[in-house]
């Protein structure tokens, strides 16, 4: 059974107010807390290391899998390996995410290693939210690794969100795309206090007509630090676009490192990066509508990270 803190964390990371419909696996404090499988989606515990295999049958449509993780005990450190085997012609939603509540003095850390094997013509929407809370001195640390292997004409839409409370993150996302495959990534990140967040993407466009769009929007407050690296490698006729748009505040530090690697004359690759403070004109406009400067700032950030 989940306690109230764990339920609250689930709400934050997976918008879950009760047990979800469809397949799910809920991991709490390093243990399996609940699991459900369906006719088309099986979840199997790995026997060689911590983690699960999620096996989705060919032709599975309009189904979802939730695999949230919550840590509410201080001092837990774990690395979990989850593999998704997605058949052909599927259309599924996968919701992951990790919430840490650390009121203790020891660091809590969850490192999720997710691998996605996406079959031909399948469409996946993947949502991963990170959230931290608790007033203990122990740090809340999340280091996710995501690997995506997309077969012909598959489509992956990833939404990565980390808005609050995670002290340290090092995110690595790698993808390899076959012919006609598309990968879209929307990353939204806000850091504050002394937080550090690094996000590294490497997308290899291997198949003809493959494409990717990696979009990051972030806000860095206080003394926090963000590093965003996006590398797109075009090995054939393909389209790649990466965009990093950051608002910097206070004494924060933001680094954006674009890397485009074209190995074919027909690889069309674009990178855009912009870092800047909130424009004075934006604040003035909202203040002229009657908002205080602080309220104006909140609205601008809220919209930016929407």
């Amino acid at each position, binding site marked *: 059974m989940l306690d109230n803190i764990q339920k609250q964390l689930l709400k934050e990371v997976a918008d879950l107010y009760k047990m979800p419909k469809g397949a799910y696996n809920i991991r709490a404090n390093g243990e399996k807390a609940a699991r459900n499988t369906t006719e088309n989606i099986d979840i199997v515990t790995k026997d060689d290391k911590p983690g699960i295999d999620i096996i989705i049958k060919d032709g599975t449509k309009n189904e979802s899998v939730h695999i949230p993780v919550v840590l509410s005990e201080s001092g837990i450190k774990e690395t979990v390996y989850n593999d998704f085997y997605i058949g052909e012609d599927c259309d599924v939603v996968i919701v992951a995410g990790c919430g840490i509540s650390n009121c203790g003095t020891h660091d809590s850390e969850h490192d999720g290693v997710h691998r996605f094997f996406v079959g031909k013509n399948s469409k996946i929407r993947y949502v991963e939210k990170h959230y931290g809370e608790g007033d203990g001195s122990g740090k809340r640390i999340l280091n996710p690794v995501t690997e995506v292997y997309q077969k012909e004409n598959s489509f992956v839409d990833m939404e990565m969100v980390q808005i609050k409370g995670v002290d340290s993150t090092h995110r690595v996302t790698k993808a390899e795309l076959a012919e006609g495959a598309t990968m879209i990534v929307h990353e939204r990140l806000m850091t504050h206090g002394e937080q550090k967040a690094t996000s590294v993407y490497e997308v290899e466009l291997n198949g003809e007509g493959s494409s990717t769009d990696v979009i990051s929007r972030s806000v860095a407050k206080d003394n926090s630090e963000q590093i965003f690296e996006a590398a797109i490698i075009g090995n054939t006729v393909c389209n790649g676009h990466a965009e990093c748009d950051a608002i910097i505040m206070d004494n924060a530090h933001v680094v954006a490192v674009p890397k485009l690697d074209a190995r074919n004359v027909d690889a069309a690759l674009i990178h855009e990066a912009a870092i800047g403070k909130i424009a004075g004109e934006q604040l003035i406009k909202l203040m002229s509508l009657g908002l205080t400067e602080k309220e104006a700032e909140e609205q601008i950030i809220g919209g930016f*990270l929407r």
Partner: protein
Amino acid sequence: MLELKDLTYQVEENNETLTIIDHLDLTIDDGKFIVITGPNGGGKSTLAKLIMGVKELTSGQMIFDGEDITECSITDRARKGISFAFQQPVHFKGIKVLDLLRLATGKNISVNTACEYLSKVGLCAKEYIDREVNSSLSGGELKRIEIATVLARGTKFSIFDEPEAGIDIWSFQNLIQVFENIRKTVKGTVLIISHQERILNIADEIIVIENGKVKKHGPKDEILPELLGTADAVNRACSKMS
């Protein structure tokens, strides 16, 4: 009523003090539709920004409805009933037209109510309500949304800084109609900075600002013929030269 007493605004440029507004006195009565005009660089937009508090006075005093607002912030002036439509509307990534109208009204207004404001500025509401106020909108569209935010506030004193600036002639034709409608429907004081004869033509009063001072101030019927006369004189002179 807005009383501007001995307003001066100076800036430092290359170790020189430039006087943009020069000991200007002006009283604007309630409920009037007033157009401020005058040569470029004469101080019109600066005056408007001083009233909203976007720029800070060097010296002088501003009294709004009997209350001294000289030291008030932008937020305070907005809350006391002054609105401002900027000459160059800003973009907001992620903020939608509906959000901006809700912020303007200070209420969680319904989509229908928001649509009414958009209709008033000649925008097909359905197409715009969910769009972000970003660079995907044209200059004319942004200008109308900007005007809609001021209408949505419905304050007793509304300033429009050169609504015609930066928009194409086709959008301008529609914009004139928007202001003709505002003229008929708005109850508070409207202050528009404009060079356009058709806007000057619907004014109760015209104020001419030149070299940071009020050069002329009076009823439209008195001031407009003088201005047009001047323009005619210029045109005649130009035609003789060519």
